């Protein structure tokens, strides 16, 4: 970024900040307005136009996918599109945040981050963990959830949070726990400093091992390899030096040290409890920022800091003041994730169209339009079920399990860029040709819609709303009428249209 831009940006921020000197709690609408002031001021100084507002259908599908992880059913879509109340979007957001699928969707995302892909019986663990997490996201604040995860003890069946701490048949390695905890709860990548001081960043090797020292006490009774049966406990006598037999790369003996350099002092609690208490205090400089940035990243497809978990002094946020304010308001709300989410999705910035028009590339980078995101594997599966019902099992055929197998086949591990399409031939072949969804399910759907007496336009209207959550355009109606002639019957043509709509980029993307 050039110096001139920086000055302009700072100026814009000062002007904007002047209007919001009231530092106390903001309500949702005020926080949404604050977001827009920051985004718009920056667009203005850079001379970049913002995109037009999204229409109701575009907003509807987007907000369902982002908050519930699934497209709306045709009934839900039809009723929202028929709603003419001026506050219909806010009402919809309130409903979505209050309904259980909100927590289930977040749980689905977070189990992907926190359950080791190398855990034994990963699917069983993921299900246990997801169920636990869904209930937490629906009812608890982020500091509570984090504390329960970081301090979990006992057996898995009694406390599924323990799953965060295990891999293989053992507790996760201290090195892995350090890496995960710093990335997902503090938004920093300490692992770069495991073996040597980071060349560009403040993280030093001793900071990595100082953080690692908080996790050394996690162990199974008797170091048993039966972690799935016996669970984990804290053993105060275990320190970094007691793990030295494994000698991880770059090992450095350090006392437990909080990020920033403060050592843990004679605490009566366990090391992990001390870490959780430090991390989730309202004054912690990392915790709220990490989640604010990650939530923004998830909803906008791009963080205010990128990569989403790589915050450090040499990696400047695109909108520094905005990130500060989001983090502060999130902390002041008591780490209420619904509060933060509601404010973001209520902003004009979130409710813009994803069509670029004639805008320069910078528009997306400055949040002047909504980027096109890719449906996650879970979103894809759940949306297919919403349209077609549960997949049919072939009589005598292999057990087509279901969501778990589908998600494993289609998913990306880790934190893939939400805007990058990362599927290839195997996935597309399956989408086009697997009987799991597009065989009898599609036939059943089209047979239901293409009843005698219904016109081509009636059927096209239903299929578009059911699959793409929007009515067809006039051109699309014309196209379908011509297709009915080619296919020979309305029912055949409907089946083919349903298939084709399910294969469109529009369906596979969150736009």
């Amino acid at each position, binding site marked *: 970024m050039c110096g001139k831009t920086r000055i302009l940006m700072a100026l814009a921020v000062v002007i904007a900040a002047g209007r919001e000197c009231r530092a106390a709690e903001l309500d949702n609408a005020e926080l949404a307005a604050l977001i827009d002031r920051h985004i718009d001021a920056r667009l203005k100084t850079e001379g970049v136009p913002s995109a037009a507002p999204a229409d109701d259908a575009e907003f509807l599908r987007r907000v369902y996918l982002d908050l519930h992880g699934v497209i709306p059913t045709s009934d839900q879509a039809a009723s929202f599109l028929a709603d003419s109340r001026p506050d219909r979007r806010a009402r919809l957001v309130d409903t979505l945040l209050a309904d259980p699928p909100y927590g289930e969707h977040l749980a689905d995302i977070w189990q992907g981050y926190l359950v*080791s*892909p*190398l855990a034994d019986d990963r699917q069983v663990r993921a299900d246990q963990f997801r169920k636990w997490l869904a209930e937490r996201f629906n009812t608890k604040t982020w500091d509570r959830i984090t504390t329960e995860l970081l301090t979990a003890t006992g057996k898995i069946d009694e406390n599924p949070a323990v799953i965060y701490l295990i891999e*293989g*048949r053992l507790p*996760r390695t201290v*090195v892995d726990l350090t*890496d995960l905890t710093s990335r997902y709860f503090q938004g920093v*990548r300490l*692992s*770069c400093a495991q073996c040597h001081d980071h060349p*560009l960043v403040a993280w030093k090797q001793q900071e990595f091992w100082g953080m690692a020292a908080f996790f050394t006490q996690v162990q199974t009774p008797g170091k048993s390899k039966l972690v799935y049966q016996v669970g984990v406990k804290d053993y105060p006598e275990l320190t970094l030096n007691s793990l030295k037999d494994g000698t991880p790369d770059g090992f450095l003996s350090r006392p437990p040290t909080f990020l920033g350099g403060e050592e843990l002092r004679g605490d009566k609690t366990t090391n992990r409890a001390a870490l959780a208490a430090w991390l989730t205090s309202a004054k912690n400089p990392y915790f709220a920022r990490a989640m604010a940035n990650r939530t923004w990243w998830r909803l906008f497809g791009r963080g205010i800091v*990128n*990569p989403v*978990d*790589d915050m450090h002094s040499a990696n400047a946020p695109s909108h520094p003041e905005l990130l500060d304010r989001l983090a502060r308001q999130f902390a002041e709300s008591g780490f209420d994730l619904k509060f933060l989410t509601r404010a973001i999705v209520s902003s004009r910035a979130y409710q813009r169209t*994803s*069509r*670029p028009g004639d805008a320069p590339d910078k528009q997306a980078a400055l949040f002047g339009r909504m*980027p*096109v995101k*890719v449906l996650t594997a879970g979103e894809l599966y759940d949306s297919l079920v919403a349209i077609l019902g549960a997949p049919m099992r072939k009589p005598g055929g292999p057990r087509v399990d279901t969501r778990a197998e589908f998600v494993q086949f289609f998913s*990306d*591990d*880790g*934190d893939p*860029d939400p*805007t*990058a*399409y*990362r*599927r*290839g*031939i*195997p*996935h*597309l*072949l*399956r989408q*086009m*040709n*697997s009987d799991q969804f*597009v*065989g009898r399910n599609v036939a059943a759907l089209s047979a239901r819609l293409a009843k005698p007496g219904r016109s081509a336009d009636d059927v096209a209207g239903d299929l578009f709303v059911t699959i793409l959550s929007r009515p067809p355009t006039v*051109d*699309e109606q014309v*196209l379908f009428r011509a*297709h009915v002639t*080619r*296919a020979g019957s309305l029912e055949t043509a409907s089946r*083919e*249209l349903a*298939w*084709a*709509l399910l*294969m*469109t*980029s529009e369906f596979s*993307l969150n*736009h």
Partner: protein
Amino acid sequence: MKVPLPVRKPQAASRKRLTRRDFVVSATASASLVGWLGRLAAEVPNQPRPKACILLWMAGGPSHIDTFDPKPDAPANIRGEFKPADTSVPGIQISEHFPRFAKLLEHAVILRGMSTQESDHKLATFHLHTGYQNRAGVVAFPSLGAIVAKELGKRDVALPNFVAIGRGPQEALSAGFLGPDYQPLGVTDPVRGLDFIEPVGPRQEFDRQVELLRQLEKPFHEAHRSEAGGAHRSAMERAVRLMSSEQKQAFDLSRERDEVRVAYGRPAAGAAPKRGEKNLTATSGSFGQGCLMARRLVEAGVPFVEVVMGDGVGWDTHRDNFPRTKALSLECDTAMSALVEDLKTRGLLDTTLVVWMGEFGRTPQCAGGGRNHWSKAWSSVLVGGGIKGGQVVGKTDRDGAAVTDRPISVTDFLGTVCTILGIDYKRKNHPAGVDRPIPIVDTSKGVKVISELL
């Protein structure tokens, strides 16, 4: 029992150039070749055929002592029940249960000094496939197949550049940061062929649907011009292209003559798994057919094929080590010997490296009739690919417990495989979102390429 392969007219061992005569021979020798020579035929004459690699993955970790590093001088509870047998190379002995492969040993190098760190199946499988251990980290490391696909594969061809046959170790077969173009196309059961390659309904209907799709898509792509949309559409078009291509016949084993299929070891029809042998399922025996498919794919120009043996972790013989290892060895012997012979007959052996390995070896001591995991000393085997065969590299002590000469780390091993294939293993990738370049093989602890076999 050795089943002779139907021998076609032998070709030069090394195909340095494609002559007109080669085309005629290839095109007429076997019906299975007709039509999908496209990629081969497109080669520029005078260019050596690019190398390819077939990885025979022995899931579960075979005992080195019971396969390629017999220990006749060890005490009975270590040397086990199998006898060492002579091979076509004087002085080299392997287990008696690889009788056919023993006669091909002049093409093979046995690496007896494998010495690695991980002794958990998943962690070791990941390490051996990617060369990296950092499993919770920021970087999604690509599997060897994806690396080879990227380095040696052609773009803009109907066939994918990385195919995985059998029930593979999912998490270790990912293309990671190399992205979807290098993601393996999986074939769960080689006998059944490629799943989802044919449409659910009639072909005519499918074609009409695709045409409708293309028309419907246009306005969305024109209005959004998004990278994700472009990538989705291009993947869709490539999948449609594969469905319509003749190269997809490479996945269809019914096009091979019966003698050939039998030579690779056909799964015994309806052979029920023996009681207690829970890992030998009804599909055991499909490994040979997987090897045959691998040969067809390499012939059609696919640079990397992984064939998994031991559905799940079949070689994980904590119990019944000897009967199970014997059965698996014999099945493996038939399949991989047929593969090597077939590649040789077709003039493909010098350009095709066959790698035989699992994720680790097994303990010298047999406790309760089984052997447990052992990563400190074990064996892998390389065949073909232009290496100097007929050698053993590395040595273990009397009990097969420790490497006494020429230890080979994971990175030494992968660096060597890359070098044989003509890939510069030091070359760095720059994955998005990672602020440091990632070499193909981790060079931070030094890589000692096994130069004596080059």
